């Protein structure tokens, strides 16, 4: 049997209501010698929160409940899917509605005669001849280099560089987003055995010299308003339900336009069905099995870690013993407490298991 074809399953959001379709597809995949390695919701690709790697897949299959001739698909994704496919890779699930887009983006259409089985209809990525290679032109002149180099000096797990690179960096970073240099200077003071304390109780309670109040021609003075505090016990109240107006009629809201990068790791919803939860589980399993490699519980009390085992010493980065906040991505000690190198530490707290 040949190597299985690396397959990406893309899902229309409506499919999440019928998870059995996805199940069936996955169950049938081995029969076609397909191996589903990723499964994403199409809207995640569309909003850019998931980025596909180039030349990654042999097969992309788009699953949608829409009828073949009424599929609505974001055209801008077609070149992205093309890039994600390997040469001669196959794209299933779209229709001739997007024929033009298929052709201009370097696909060939197969099994499109009426007699052919719908299931067999697919596009093929034509190998790039190199004749009409497009050149990527950076949209911005290089504002990120400075940010990236200042980020490089940071501790291993800092991720600021990526965050600043995609936002529009025209001005310096906002003041509370600290560049690493500023914090090191503030903490360079030698003697901080004691922390200084400011007692807010000593602040002036009324330090707002608001002169604009004098121009306030409110017909109700405070004393007028104070009368409403008398005898309110049996007063009638407004109904809370009446405070909600019909749809979209509760005044304006301030819209925030997100300037941040989309590199944020996604968090699975409580009842995730798009695959993120499985990814998280897998990550946890991976990290735990790595821990098993470096942690040996002693026979008797399961309370000590033995760091003397050959090849299980602290890594060359020197950060392993410092705790998760300082460990590198992929560090085998992730998830374990900070420890003193070479010393067996009390792990009473971590020895219980499900």
């Amino acid at each position: 049997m040949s190597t299985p074809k690396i397959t990406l399953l893309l899902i229309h959001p409506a499919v999440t209501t019928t998870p059995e379709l996805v199940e069936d597809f996955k169950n049938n995949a081995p029969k076609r010698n397909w191996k589903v390695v990723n499964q994403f919701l199409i809207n995640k690709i569309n909003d850019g929160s998931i980025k596909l790697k180039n030349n990654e897949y042999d097969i992309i299959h788009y699953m949608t409940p829409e009828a073949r001739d009424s599929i609505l698909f974001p055209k801008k994704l077609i070149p992205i899917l093309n890039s994600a496919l390997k040469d001669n890779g196959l794209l299933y699930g779209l229709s001739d509605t997007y024929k033009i887009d298929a052709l201009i983006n370097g696909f060939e259409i197969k099994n499109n005669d009426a007699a052919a089985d719908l299931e067999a209809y697919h596009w093929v990525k034509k190998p790039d001849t190199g004749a009409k290679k497009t050149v990527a032109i950076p949209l911005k002149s290089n504002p990120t280099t400075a940010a990236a180099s200042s980020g490089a000096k940071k501790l291993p797990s800092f991720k600021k560089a990526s965050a600043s690179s995609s936002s529009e960096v025209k001005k310096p970073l906002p003041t509370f987003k600290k560049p690493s240099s500023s914090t090191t200077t503030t903490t360079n003071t030698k003697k901080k055995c004691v922390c200084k304390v400011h007692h807010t109780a000593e602040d002036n309670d009324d330090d707002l010299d608001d002169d604009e109040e004098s121009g306030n021609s409110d017909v109700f003075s405070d004393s007028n308003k104070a009368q409403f505090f008398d005898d309110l016990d049996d007063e009638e109240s407004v109904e809370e339900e009446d405070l909600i107006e019909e749809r979209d009629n509760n005044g304006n809201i301030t819209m925030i336009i997100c300037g941040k990068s989309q590199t944020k790791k996604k968090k699975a919803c409580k009842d995730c069905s798009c695959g993120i939860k499985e990814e998280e589980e897998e990550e946890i399993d991976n990290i735990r099995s790595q821990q098993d490699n470096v942690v040996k519980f002693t026979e008797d009390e399961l309370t000590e870690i033995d760091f003397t085992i050959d090849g299980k010493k602290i890594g060359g980065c020197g950060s392993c013993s410092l705790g998760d906040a300082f460990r590198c991505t992929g560090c085998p000690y992730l998830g374990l407490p900070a420890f003193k190198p070479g010393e067996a530490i009390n792990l009473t707290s971590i020895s219980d298991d499900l």
Partner: protein
Amino acid sequence: MSSQKKIAILFGSETGNAQDFATILSHKLQRLHFSHTLSSFSEYDPKDILSCKYLFLFCSTTGQGELPKNASDGKFWSFLKKKKLPANFLSHVNVTLFGLGDSSYPKFNYAIRKLHQRIVVQLGAKEVFDRLEADEQSMAGSNKGTGAGVESVYFEYEKRILQFLKEKFPNRKLKNGEVIERDEIDPEIYLAPYSYLTLADEEDDPNPAASDNSNIKFEGDKSMKYGKVIKNERITDPEHFQDVRQFIFKNNDESVNDIYYPGDTAAIYSYNTDLAVEQFLENQSHWLEVADKPLKFTNGIPSHLRDGGIVKPLTIRNLLKYHCDIMSIPRTSFFMKMWTFATDVTRMERGEEQLNDQRDKLKEFAYDEDMQELYDYCNRPRRSILEVLDDFLSVRLPWKYMLDYLPIIKPRYYSISSGPCNPQIELTVAIVKYRTILRKIRKGVCSDFIAHLNTNDQVRYKIISNNLIRKSYHGKPMILVSPGVGIAPLMSVVKANVSNDIHFFFGCRFKDKDYLYQDILEKWNSENKIMLHPVFSRDRENSPDTKYVQDVLWKLGQEMTDLIVKDNALMLLCGASGKMPVQVRLTVIEMLKKWGNFADDDAARKYLKEMERDDRYLQETW
């Protein structure tokens, strides 16, 4: 607590998010010498609004689009709702509003919209800028689908408030009347709270047995109730992954009759294990020698400690055990307050350099707007404060401010499953346990507390009334829908005998494993007290053609739609939030279209909206 402050930050918070953002804003204002009140709505004295000129609001939404308890309780909100207040009652107030919501609930951000309608539209407060509404639902949070996370929405809010205040008040007045430029307090300096702890002198506490822990008491909250455990029994199969308890307790005082009705909840006040307290004290070993000494407050009991009463004898150990939530996941405000106590170089293997690294890292957790580092380090692995302190040994905390920087244990709410006013109060509690990358299994703080309670152990609790089912629906047909432990309030509905025509849709995974209260449900079914429709999502044998509650609803679509449309049936849906309530809702809309003579989607949706408005379609999810 009464105060004449011109600036007030008020919050209504259910899970603590809104409160944490309010605390962050408060902290930033303090650093700019803006004297202000920080309080929940319910603790705010209505009269203080007369002297308030700048009101910064935070509010989440709970239940059926309602304000959280610590906003709707107390006098302030009920005062503002008085009809006789004139249209310019709040004309002297500049207000800003920030809503935290979850768009998987139909009544998304209703609480902040209600506040807006009343405070701005009806009572004439001036809105400094259009309110902000954040959405917990989308993975990174969002603001009307813009993809901006809850925290970015907050920081935008904070930015606008600080800008507004700084422009208006570039200077400040000292106590001696001198006016100087409004400078910001160095972030390295800790801001001590108004009232904190000191050792009590002998004359403060005439009782020499202050450190005697045999008689723990809680003072200052008369509404607190004390009960003892009658039964604490697992009701799922021992082989099943989830441990669900039938948990029954009753008031210690036989003469007291707790008043409650279907849909009401019990607030359970849990506390930390002695082991956790011991670990904390070992970590902050300089606390040990004073851990059992009697203490007092410099300026009275801080208001955030009032709910549930404060422990007596007042000692560090008792405060750690009964009040400080050291097993919780630390929030930004925790780091904002404590990072500057990372001062102890003696516990640093690598000396000064490591100390500075720890300080920098903690400060980053405190001030980084992205909050991603903090999220990856604390939230994702569900790391507790205790575990953070074990990783950051440079932190040497002063105990006298412990109630300022440590969060306070909040009660957890559980739906009552016993019949109305039954002195034996019964809860159905799922014991929360899960794995993360951290070696130690994560446990729900309160459910783990409950799991370890034995018969006759004491519980501190309150009964919270929710007025879930309107009287006018008594006697009408009812459609009750609950997957899993959502069954708790529905059991109470059936036991209340408020209807002779109950359709009970219960869903779980396996008939033989997590079919909660199977015996009594089937007995009721055979007695025609209910019509039972169980469904099992992973059990083809016992549930061949349906998996979820909404599948069964659809299967009985004609009958259920008739009950809803023709007989005015009440529909009550309980269980975990997420997709379930959304799908049930969609199913009901489809049912209305197919069997209810509603021409199109809009007509069906409108009808369902009306049902919701009339509390005839109730969703109690968490």
